[in-house]
């Protein structure tokens, strides 16, 4: 199944191939390569608009996830009832926000990957509303990124690091 990348903004130039390459590895590590996934790159104005509508927070943010399987528990695997259900949902990346937050010594595409991985974990039911939930999510992200680091030679750390 497909990873679809869309770029709806013109503020930050986005190269799709490097992002796809890394997210394909992440999908493989998580065992969800046979599910459709959408990664949509948007600017501050758009992500703020979405944040306001769906989370009542009128500020831009780095990532918003819209799961297809809404009641998935952390660590559970989606159980598709039909071929239409081979879909994880969409991850909206606030690429302008991420770019603004990116430090000088950080690689932008590494941060995009870490953020998209965090978003993908949300699609799989992981949350960080409590310390216990956060611990599960942090462990999952760490597992995935350590494996990714082995492939790519990078030293990526989970986005949820330091949340609790």
């Amino acid at each position, binding site marked *: 199944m497909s990873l679809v*990348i*869309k770029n709806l903004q*013109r503020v930050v130039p986005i190269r*799709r*191939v490097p992002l796809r390459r890394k997210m394909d590895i992440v999908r493989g590590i998580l065992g969800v390569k046979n599910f459709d996934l959408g990664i949509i790159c948007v600017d501050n104005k758009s992500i703020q608009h979405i944040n306001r509508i769906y989370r009542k927070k009128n500020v831009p943010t780095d990532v918003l996830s819209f799961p297809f399987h809404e009641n998935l528990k952390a660590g559970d695997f989606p159980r598709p009832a039909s071929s239409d259900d081979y879909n994880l949902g969409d991850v909206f990346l606030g690429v302008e926000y991420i770019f603004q937050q990116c430090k000088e010594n950080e690689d932008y595409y590494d941060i995009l990957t870490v953020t998209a991985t965090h978003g993908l974990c949300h699609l799989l039911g992981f949350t960080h509303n409590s310390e216990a939930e956060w611990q599960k999510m942090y462990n999952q992200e760490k597992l995935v990124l350590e494996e990714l680091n082995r492939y790519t030679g990078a030293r990526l750390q989970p986005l949820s690091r330091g949340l609790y």
Partner: protein
Amino acid sequence: MLSLLRCVPRALGAAATGFRAAAPASPLPQLLQPALRPCLRPFGLLSVRAGSARRSDLLKPPAPCSCGCGALHTEGDKAFVEFLTDEIKEEKKIQKHKSLPKMSGNWELEVNGTEAKLSRKVAGEKITVTFNINNSIPPTFGGGEEEPSQDQKTEEQEPELTSTPNFVVEVTKSDGKKTLVLDCHYPEDEFGNEEDSDIFSIKEVSFQATGDSEWRDTNYTLNTDSLDWALYDHLMDFLEDRGVDNNFADELVELSTALEHQEYITFLEDLKGFVKSQ
């Protein structure tokens, strides 16, 4: 005052047909009866003189203008010219760009009527982007569930028309043998919903012989509708490297809209001159 001609599809054909439909009817039967006494006047004049008191003005054929130019100037033409004068004035008032906006990225622009060509050289490669502003304004549809309230309707202006033409990108390498041709489109959704679409997409890709003005159907054309997404992303990154990115696509809309508006005003002026024909 609203520019009425800009609010609806430009049905000049229908208007012209409607105008042409106001032709005079055939003469009334009684006029064909022979005169009671011999008359030296031509039959046509006799019939006019005999029937003019009974003929409605509607049936009178439009007479040539007394200005002596020999053309046909009807009341309808006069009203048309007056309408066009107002329309041109309004269109010029709302014209966003008096001259064509410049594209960032050292693109050279050539305009030939409704066709525009942008070109640049990047490290020995020649890149051209060609588009035509004819039929480049998608129809705007009213919302279903979200009809504006009466107050909103009176306050809101008519939606701005934007020109989103298909554009063709041609890339020729320094050896110049083949040109890679990518046909790109802006998203089109019948409900006007373009929220989740890329700013532009590549629809077809093919190779054409460099300098060949004729499109060869026998060259393989890749259609991206069912293309592998990874390959599609490579093509998009390829264009991005050559300056055809989302920023370019947005600026091209500005340029195309300005050119289209310019051509529209010129057309209205030509139309006014033609109808006036003095």
